[in-house]
């Protein structure tokens, strides 16, 4: 994906209040031309309000939105160079597919011949060739969504806005559409801005993700950074599954650090965290980054010594719960201190030799670069 690093949308100190409720709280961010930008957050976090302000269906209480350098403050939705795919798809029920997709072009006064060509092209793009005369009530949810997509793409907007585009589809179709949307975006080169509450969706499609919490941007980063280097507890917890332990920063040098966690013992890191000494911090540890061992064989100790030369990231516990998910198995382990920790383990072979089960005593270790120290 080649990207022109020009901001196509500039959001400047935008707030939106509905009465006493602040839906969007002083957000500023740039969306670059050609990128697949995702606004991710729990329901009610203000992400949809932000999208609707870009489309022009809500007016910011404060701040400005620029699209392609133009201030949109006084531009109504029908005059903005953006198009939106609505959560309900909002396909016009009394028009067939051709009329639905050609609607915007008809309004714009495009000639009939050109409308025909562009509608055919758009339908081809979303793989709906042959559906021209279908009425919306004769189509499945997935097909209706493609109509909505084609109807927006046919306008050749500078930015395509998508409001929870996959939430109404079943799991299989959703996974397929994730790939198709990313592929489509690559093909047409239009900037996509998507709103979703589903972290899988965000991680799989986005070039950059803005995690929104309570109307503010909690973190803006590419998907991998979001997952591996969360900026705070909210992001660490919202994106993916995580174990979070409270502790005190006892050592912080450029190439190493240590956190004393009452629940987990001392945690060693092979990099500095640049936090105030003795500060209250949180350590985030992803379940898949913890290795499980049968205790008493010294394997855990040897592995830990190898992975963390400065100290032993080791823990012991008892398996209290497990759920087999096919590709991985998830374990709930009670640490010796009483706290629970989640560990996931890929099922690499059909018959795992080291099958763990309920009430087994286990040892755990993790690499020194796995934990993330969070200051907020």
């Amino acid at each position, binding site marked *: 994906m080649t990207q022109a690093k020009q901001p196509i949308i500039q959001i400047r100190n935008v707030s939106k209040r509905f009465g006493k409720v602040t839906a969007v709280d002083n957000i500023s961010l740039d969306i670059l031309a050609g990128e697949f930008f995702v606004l991710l957050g729990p329901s009610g976090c203000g992400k949809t309000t932000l999208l609707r302000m870009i489309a022009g269906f809500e007016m910011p209480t404060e701040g400005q939105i620029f699209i392609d350098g133009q201030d949109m403050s006084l531009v109504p*939705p029908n*005059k903005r160079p*953006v198009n939106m795919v*609505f*959560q309900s798809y909002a396909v016009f*029920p009394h028009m067939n597919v051709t009329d639905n997709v050609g*609607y915007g072009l008809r*309004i714009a006064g495009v000639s009939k011949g050109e409308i025909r060509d562009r509608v055919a092209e758009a339908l081809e793009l979303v793989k709906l060739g042959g559906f021209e005369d279908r009425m919306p009530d004769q189509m499945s949810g997935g097909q209706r969504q493609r109509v909505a997509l084609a*109807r927006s793409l046919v306008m050749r907007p500078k930015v395509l806005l998508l409001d929870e585009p996959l939430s109404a589809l079943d799991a299989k179709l959703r996974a397929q559409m994730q790939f198709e949307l990313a592929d489509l975006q690559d093909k047409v080169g239009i900037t996509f801005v998507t709103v979703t509450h589903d972290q899988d969706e965000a991680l799989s499609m986005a070039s950059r993700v803005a995690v929104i919490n309570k109307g503010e941007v909690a973190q803006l980063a590419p998907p991998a950074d979001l997952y591996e280097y969360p900026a705070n507890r909210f992001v660490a917890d919202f994106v993916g599954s995580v174990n979070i332990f409270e502790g005190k920063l006892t050592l912080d040098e450029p190439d190493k650090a240590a956190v004393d966690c009452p629940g987990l013992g001392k945690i060693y890191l092979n990099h500095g965290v640049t936090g105030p000494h003795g500060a209250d911090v949180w350590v985030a540890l992803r379940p898949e980054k913890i290795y499980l061992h049968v205790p008493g064989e010294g394997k855990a100790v040897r592995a830990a010594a190898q992975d963390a030369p400065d100290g032993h990231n080791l823990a012991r516990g008892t398996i209290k719960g497990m759920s087999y998910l096919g590709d991985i198995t998830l374990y709930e382990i009670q640490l010796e201190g009483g706290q629970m920790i989640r560990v996931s383990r890929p099922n690499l072979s059909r018959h795992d030799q080291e099958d763990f089960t309920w009430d087994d005593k286990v040892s755990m270790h993790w690499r020194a670069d796995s934990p993330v120290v969070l200051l907020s």
Partner: protein
Amino acid sequence: MFNRTPIAPLEYTRKLWMRSWVGLTMLFLYAPLILLMIFSFNDSKRNVVWKGFTLKYYEKALHNDSLVEALVNSLTIAALATIVSLVIGALAAVALWRFRFPFKGLVEGTMSLPIIVPEICLGVAFLIFFAKVDWPTDLPWPLNLSAITIAHITFCFPFVAMVVRARLASFNKEEEEAAKDLGASEWQAFRDVLLPHIRPALVAGALLAFTLSLDDFVITFFTSGPDTITFPVKVYSMVRFSVTPEVNAASTILILLTVILTFIALKLQGVKGIAETH
């Protein structure tokens, strides 16, 4: 007859009590009307006992100039009242659905008042109102019908508004936003998206308004002058002298008229569309 399959527990339509109940209901609803129609062919001035078949009272009714004039008046009033009620009613419904404004509840309540207020009160109110404002009564046709038409609009448009309002409740606002998003102006979005959605309600509302206006007696009685007799008022004055089969014939014509109009409207719209409204 003898090889019938037994009636399953949920086959209500085959049960005797259900069938007789439906039959009784139908009888209750339609027996008077059917009797009225039958006796319009009765060859008897008194019209109490059946004396034989004749069409002469239809002929008589159709040659009764004042009766025909009354019918034309009625149809004119109904048509005008329907058109105006549709516009006012639909706009009122859209406004109430679309906007939030102070005293909205009050506006909504007062708007449906003409449905609730007893007709006799409305009739008297209109009588006094038109007298007070000195509404001209000597205008040429059809302007002389203006007082009755205005009165009819008053009680017809709330029905249109009600039906349209109900239909609007099922409208997905995102469709309108989608239209605007694709470049449509406020008016284009209304014409292309909202109007098609409420069309069945408009047909149903028009039907309601038309029939309500056509057969209104009480309010019309109070607002009509000597030259502006409507069909129901005329029939009433005929009945006061005697119930001849001519009255039956005239009534039968009116019934047929309404049935045919309803049928056409349903055909135009598709019965499904109207059923969806409710």
